[in-house]
């Protein structure tokens, strides 16, 4: 068995500023060894450790879809030692990626179902991967209706804006983009917090509809009652968690919520599962 702490060497292929305040950048990585790309085969919802020699590692959700070949993408918020260093790195620099890690959104279970994606702020990365995955021509017929509620503080803080506006134009996905507030008179989408827009725009629950929620704790806290009042059951609400991590493989001990480890048993849990844990996240 291979050393699970050993990152695959990658080269930074592209860097894109993702938000107007420049606090988020999207990094596109190419594997130095072609066979590593095959070993990295992931499912939408998983994360990886971005590994910068001499700096450290950070667990980040994989923003590219398994259907996008030849590279992997991560959108990173500048916040600590490693992410600040990464934000100053350049195209062509060599670093490492360790993964894919953790579980994924339950794609087997979601086949034939309607999917409601709910995201807020910069927690939209694995949700982007999921949308691209579901919209892939080879996969779209496997799913029923797709709704997306995605919000950010302002229009310029929305991630993947070009793709969002493209998806708006399609008829096989219902987009509900929202911002907390804006003074842009040409803004033609929603204004309001994500939980409110969920209450207004998300489809009512039925046994064939599942919600995937990923966002900051405050958004999750208020989205949960919004979904419950639409009739969603605890096993129909699927959430992706974050906790401080180091190893990413269930060994270093810090990301537990009760006996479950967010890095290995998660990061994806149903609300039903979470309600049995002490929810220390």
């Amino acid at each position: 068995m291979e050393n699970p702490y050993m990152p695959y060497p990658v080269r930074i292929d592209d860097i894109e500023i993702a938000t107007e305040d420049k606090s988020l950048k999207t990094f596109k990585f190419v594997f130095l060894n072609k066979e590593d790309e095959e070993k990295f085969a992931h499912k939408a919802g998983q994360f990886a450790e971005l590994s910068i020699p001499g700096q450290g590692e950070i667990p980040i959700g994989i923003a590219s879809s398994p259907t996008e070949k030849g590279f992997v993408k991560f959108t990173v918020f500048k916040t600590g030692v490693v992410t600040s260093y990464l934000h100053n790195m350049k195209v062509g620099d060599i670093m490492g990626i360790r993964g894919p890690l953790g579980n994924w959104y339950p794609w087997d279970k979601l086949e034939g179902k309607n999917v409601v994606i709910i995201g807020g702020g910069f927690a939209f990365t694995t949700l982007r991967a999921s949308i691209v995955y579901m919209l892939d021509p080879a996969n779209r017929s496997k799913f029923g209706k797709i709704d997306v509620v995605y919000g950010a503080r302002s229009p310029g803080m929305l991630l993947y804006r070009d793709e969002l506006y493209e998806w708006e134009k399609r008829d096989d996905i219902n987009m509900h983009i929202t911002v907390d507030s804006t003074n842009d008179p040409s803004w033609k989408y929603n204004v309001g917090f994500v939980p409110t827009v969920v209450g207004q725009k998300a489809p009512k629950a039925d046994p064939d509809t599942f919600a995937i929620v990923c966002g900051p704790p405050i958004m999750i806290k208020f989205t949960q009652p919004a979904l419950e009042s639409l009739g969603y059951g605890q096993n129909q609400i699927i959430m992706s968690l974050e906790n401080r991590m180091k190893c990413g493989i269930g060994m270093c001990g810090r990301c537990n919520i009760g006996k479950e480890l967010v890095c290995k048993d998660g990061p994806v849990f149903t609300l039903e599962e979470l309600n049995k844990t002490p929810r220390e996240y």
Partner: protein
Amino acid sequence: MKVIKIDKTEWTGGIDKSRAKYLLFGPVKDKDVQNNERYIFKQLSADQFPDMEASDTVLSPKGTVFPQTEKMLQVSLDPSVPDHHIMKRVDTDYSPRAVIGIRPFDAKALTLVNLNFDTKDYRDPYWCDAYQATTFVGLAVNKPSQFDFSTSMGSSPFGEEGLDVLLVDNGSEFLAKVITDKGQSFLDAAGFNKSADESSAQKIEELKAAAEKAVAAKVGTDNLTKRTILELHEAPFWNDIAFAYINCGTCTFVCPTCWCFDIQDETKGKSSTRFRNWDSCMFPLFTLHGSGHNPRGEKVQRVRQRFMHKLKYFLDKYDKGTMCVGCGRCVQSCPVNIDIREVCNIMNNYEPKK
């Protein structure tokens, strides 16, 4: 079960002989930073012998397979070097080693830690390579300390789990119970090959019974599986237990089953090493998010985490008993007298209000 008799006059000679095939670790007298004498487990130099009269060590011997700081990967940051910024595993010597004089509860503790590091999904190569390279030559505890409650925690002063050989001090001789082939190989390498006579098994049983009887503290664990995680987590007693707690982390460092670790990179010049250090759930930084949010920012949450992990989460996850072997080190070393025996009894006796 095969028993070998080792006359104590032959002991040092055999130990010396074993050095040809094994790196040796054992308890030796050492001084702490305040110049107080105490015993520690360490790798023995060529002229050092394990002190078989040693009192219990302050630190458990887990560091013999899980060093407090351990190099994992290394890398060159010099762009003129081929393979710069590509990490490689540090070359560590995993030739056969033997830990001599380990207490039975400490050997059992390592079998519990092994459950964390050797899993069906991932194999931690640093732990596994060291653990598998090691032969554990235990020394039965004839006179348990006042802190010992191993018999309540699935271990015993004469427990054999996790050991390859169990030595029993029988006055002028050691009776060596051969538990595994690995243990037999070590005894062969040391030239210890005199079979003990038939009365030795009886003698070991007598000493074992006396030692187990001498373990004074009794702790209840029977009800821990009956309560749910949430019942115990939400129980009202945690504030009282955590009242005196001072964030020192001593309990986790002396504990033979605490395995949590941190990973850090250290750079000198153009060369960098990724290594891991023991970490502690008792420190606020352990769980601090980049955003400043901390799911266990309050001391009561951290104290609860430590006891819940040892006495409930681990129990539920593996069905292999508690993650405590009753060595009593944390009880002895805690500066504010937090006592896992009391906490375990409180948890075990707790009846949630209906």
